[in-house]
C-alpha cells in the first residue's frame, strides 16, 4: 500500500496503540494534521506547547502508557524543551514529534528553523532527525521502544516538512524489529549479587528500604510491599515514589529528604544498611553528601547502570529491573529463613517509633483573623476525595505540603515534577492524567506562582471536556523562595511578593470556562471542596487564601547534613538553636 509521510506518521502512532495525543499545529507539521481528521487518535489542542509536553507526562504517569505530543518546528519545539527535560529527569516515557523545515532548507536559517535535535540532545533519552520518508515507520517504532524500555524517558522525532507532503509516498511496511544495535538494556539482576544482597539484608541491624520512583516505573509496588512485610523492614518513599508503598502501612516512615519526615530522614542517616530500590541518591534526599548515612552499607538496585556508584558507593550494585530483582530477592530471603533468620531489631524499631512520637508532622491551629493554614487545606482535601484520586502538584511549598499531608495509599495517584522542579507542571499534568483516566477524580494542587505559568491549559480542559479540579494554595508569594529568604537571607524579601489583589482567580477561572470559588475561612474549606467534587462537567478552581508566613518543616538547609534537620519551631527544645542534634 502506497501512503504518504503524513499518513505514515499517524499510522505508525496508531500501530503503537496511541489513543490520545497533545499538540498544536503550525507550518512545518501542518501536513500531518490533515490526515488527523480521519484518524482514530484523539488530539487535544493545547494553548502552549509546554502544556502539551506536561500533559503527555501526566498521561504517562497515570496510565503507564507513553505520552505523545505533536508540535511544529522552531518556537514550538523550543517551547517543548522544558517538558522534555522534566520527563528526562523523572524518567517518564514520552514521544514527541516535531515538525522541521524541509530538508533542503535545513541550515539556511529558514523561517521557524531550529536545530531541534541539537537543542534537545541533552533533554531526551534519544532523538532523531528523519531524512527519508520510508524511515518514518521504523523510527517511530524505535522511538516508542526507547521511550518505554530500560530507564524510560522522552524521545523526540524531528520530521522535515518535505517528507510529509502529499507527494512524498512510499510503500508502507510494519517494522518487524528494531534498528538499535547499541541498545540492549539489562533487566535481570545478577543472581550472585542478589544472593549477596539478601544475606546483607538478613544480617542488618538497622536496615531501611529507600524506595524511589523506579518502583513505580517498574510497576513493582506489590513486590516492594512483600519484601518489606516479610523482612519487617521500614520503608521511606521518596517524592517520586509517594503511593508506591501505602502511607497508612505501619512500616512506612514517609518521605525522606530536604522536607521529609524527621523519622524518614533520621532513619536513613542512622541506618547500617540502605536498600535503595529504584532511587538515585538525589541531593535533595542526601543533603550534604559526605555526611549522608555515614554508617550505612548500600545495596543499590537500578535499571540504569550509570546510577550505581554515581553519587554513593554501592557495596552491592545490581543493575536491572526493580520488579524482577525484588522478586528474586524475596525468593532468596525465603531460602535464608525469611523473617526468622534475622537478628533482633527491637532496639531499631524503638528508636524509630520514639522519633515518630517525638517529631510527627505538625502545624499550628488556625489563628483567628488570619488566613488559612495550607496544611489544613490539604488534609481536608484528602479526606473529602476518593482514595484513588490522582493528585498533581506544582513546585514550591504547596508541593511539599501536598506530599506530606495527603495520604497516598495507591500507586500512580501522585504526579509531580521531582527532578527538574518545574513550576507550572500541575495543571497540564492533571489535564493529561484526566485525559488518560477519565473515570478518576483528578486534583491539581498549585501555588499562585505556578498557576500563573500554565493555567491557560484550563481553557484546553474546559473546551475538551476534561474536568480537572485545581486547589490554589494562594499565599500571594513565591512561597518557597520567600521561605529561603526568611531563613537564609535575613528576611530580605527580594522580588518574591506577588500581591493578593491581582489577579482575581475566581473571575479568571470563570473566564476560562471553569467554575471558580474563593475560600478565606476554615469553615468554608470542606463545603467548598464538596461543591467542587460534585461538579463533573467543567473544571473547577478554588482559590484558597493561605497564610504567607507559613513555612515548610522539617527542613534540611541546602548544603547541610541531614543530621541538622530543622523541625517545626513548636518541636524545638527551648535551649537549642532548632537543630535536634
Amino acid at each position, binding site marked *: 500500500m502506497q501512503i504518504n509521510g503524513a499518513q505514515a506518521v499517524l499510522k505508525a502512532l496508531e500501530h503503537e496503540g496511541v489513543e490520545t495525543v497533545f499538540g498544536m499545529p503550525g507550518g512545518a507539521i501542518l501536513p500531518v494534521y490533515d490526515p488527523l481528521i480521519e484518524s482514530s487518535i484523539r488530539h487535544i489542542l493545547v494553548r502552549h506547547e509546554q502544556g502539551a509536553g506536561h500533559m503527555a507526562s501526566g498521561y504517562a504517569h497515570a496510565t503507564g502508557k507513553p505520552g505523545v505530543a505533536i508540535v511544529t518546528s522552531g518556537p514550538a519545539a523550543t517551547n517543548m524543551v522544558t517538558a522534555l527535560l522534566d520527563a528526562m529527569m523523572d524518567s517518564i516515557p514520552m514521544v514527541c514529534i516535531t515538525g522541521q523545515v524541509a530538508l533542503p532548507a535545513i541550515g539556511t536559517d529558514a523561517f521557524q528553523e531550529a536545530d531541534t535535535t*541539537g537543542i534537545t*540532545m541533552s533533554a531526551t*533519552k534519544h532523538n532523531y*532527525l528523519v531524512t527519508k520518508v520510508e524511515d518514518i515507520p521504523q523510527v517511530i517504532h524505535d522511538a516508542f521502544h526507547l521511550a518505554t524500555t530500560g530507564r524510560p524517558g522522552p524521545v523526540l522525532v524531528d520530521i522535515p516538512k518535505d517528507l510529509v507532503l502529499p507527494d512524498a509516498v512510499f510503500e508502507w511496511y510494519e517494522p518487524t524489529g528494531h534498528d538499535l544495535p*547499541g541498545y540492549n538494556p539489562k533487566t535481570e539482576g545478577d543472581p550472585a549479587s542478589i544472593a549477596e544482597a539478601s544475606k546483607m539484608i538478613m544480617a542488618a541491624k538497622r536496615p531501611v528500604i529507600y524506595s524511589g520512583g523506579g518502583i513505580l516505573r517498574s510497576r513493582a509496588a506489590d513486590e516492594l510491599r512483600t519484601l518489606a512485610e516479610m523482612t519487617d523492614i521500614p520503608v521511606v518513599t521518596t517524592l517520586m515514589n509517594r503511593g508506591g508503598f501505602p502511607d497508612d502501612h505501619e512500616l512506612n516512615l514517609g518521605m525522606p529528604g530536604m522536607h521529609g519526615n524527621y523519622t524518614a530522614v533520621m532513619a536513613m542517616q542512622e541506618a547500617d544498611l540502605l536498600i535503595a530500590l529504584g532511587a538515585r541518591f538525589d541531593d535533595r534526599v542526601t543533603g550534604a553528601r559526605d555526611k549522608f548515612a555515614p554508617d550505612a552499607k548500600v545495596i543499590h538496585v537500578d535499571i540504569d547502570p*550509570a546510577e550505581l*556508584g554515581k553519587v554513593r558507593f554501592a557495596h552491592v550494585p545490581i543493575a536491572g529491573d526493580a520488579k524482577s530483582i525484588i522478586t528474586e530477592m524475596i525468593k532468596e530471603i525465603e531460602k535464608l529463613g525469611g523473617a526468622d533468620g534475622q537478628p533482633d531489631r527491637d532496639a531499631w524499631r524503638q528508636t524509630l517509633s520514639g522519633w515518630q512520637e517525638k517529631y510527627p508532622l505538625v502545624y499550628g491551629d488556625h489563628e483567628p483573623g488570619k488566613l488559612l493554614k495550607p496544611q489544613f487545606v490539604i488534609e481536608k482535601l484528602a479526606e473529602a476525595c476518593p482514595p484513588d484520586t490522582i493528585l498533581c502538584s506544582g513546585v514550591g511549598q504547596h508541593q511539599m505540603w501536598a506530599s506530606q499531608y495527603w495520604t497516598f495509599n495507591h500507586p500512580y495517584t501522585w504526579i509531580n515534577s521531582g527532578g527538574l522542579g518545574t513550576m507550572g507542571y500541575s495543571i497540564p499534568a492533571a489535564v493529561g492524567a484526566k485525559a488518560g483516566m477519565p473515570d478518576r477524580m483528578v486534583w491539581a494542587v498549585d501555588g499562585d506562582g505556578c498557576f500563573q505559568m500554565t493555567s491557560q491549559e484550563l481553557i484546553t480542559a474546559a473546551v475538551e471536556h476534561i474536568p480537572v479540579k485545581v486547589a490554589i494554595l494562594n499565599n500571594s508569594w513565591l512561597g518557597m523562595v520567600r521561605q529561603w529568604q526568611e531563613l537564609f537571607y535575613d528576611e530580605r524579601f527580594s522580588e518574591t511578593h506577588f500581591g493578593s489583589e491581582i489577579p482575581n482567580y475566581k473571575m479568571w477561572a470563570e473566564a476560562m470556562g471553569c467554575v471558580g470559588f474563593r475560600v478565606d475561612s476554615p469553615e468554608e474549606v470542606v463545603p467548598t471542596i464538596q461543591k467542587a467534587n460534585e461538579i463533573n462537567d467543567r473544571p473547577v478552581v478554588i482559590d484558597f487564601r493561605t497564610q504567607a508566613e507559613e513555612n515548610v518543616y522539617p527542613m534540611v538547609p541546602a548544603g547541610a547534613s541531614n543530621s541538622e534537620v530543622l523541625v517545626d519551631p513548636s518541636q524545638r527544645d527551648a535551649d537549642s538553636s532548632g537543630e535536634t542534634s
Partner: protein
Amino acid sequence: MSHIPEFHTIVVRVENKAGVLARIAGLFSRRGFNIESLAVAPTDDDRFSRITIVVDVASTSIDQVVKQLDKLINVLEIRELDPETSVERELMMTTLSAPTPEARREIIDLVQIFDAQVLNVGFDQLMVSLVGSQRRLDDFEALLSRFGIIEIQRTGKIALSELAKVEPTES
C-alpha cells in the same frame, strides 16, 4: 590546587550516523568530563565508526565516563585500553623555520634519527612528519622547538590491543 592530569584511553565503537560525535562531545561537556584528544574514523564496516578518546580522569571516575557513554543509544561498545597492553600511535605534522643550511642539516639529522619524514621543502622552511607513540612525539617536538615551530598539528592517539604472544592452551 594544581591539577595533575591522569589519562585513560577508551575506544568506542559507534553507529556511523549524523550527530554521533555531537552526542559524545555534548555528553563530555555537560558531565564535566575532560577530553585530552579524540580521533574518529569509519571502520572496515562503514555502518560503524571507531573513536579513540583520551580522557583526563583525575577529577571524574572512569567508571562514570564509560557508563554514561554506554547510555548513548548509538554507542555499541566501549573498551578501556591499558597502556601496558596496547599499541598506540599518533601522527604529527609540523612546519619548521630552517633559514640556514646548518639548520636544515640538523633538522634532517633528527628526522633520520627518529625515522621521521620530510614532507615538503620551502626556501626557508621544512615540513616534517612523525608517526609514533605519544612519548616519542613529545620528545621529537621538544628537540625541534629550538628551530622555531611555525605550525604544528597532532592527530591525538589511536590504539589497538596488543596481540597474544603465545597460543592459549586448551583448558
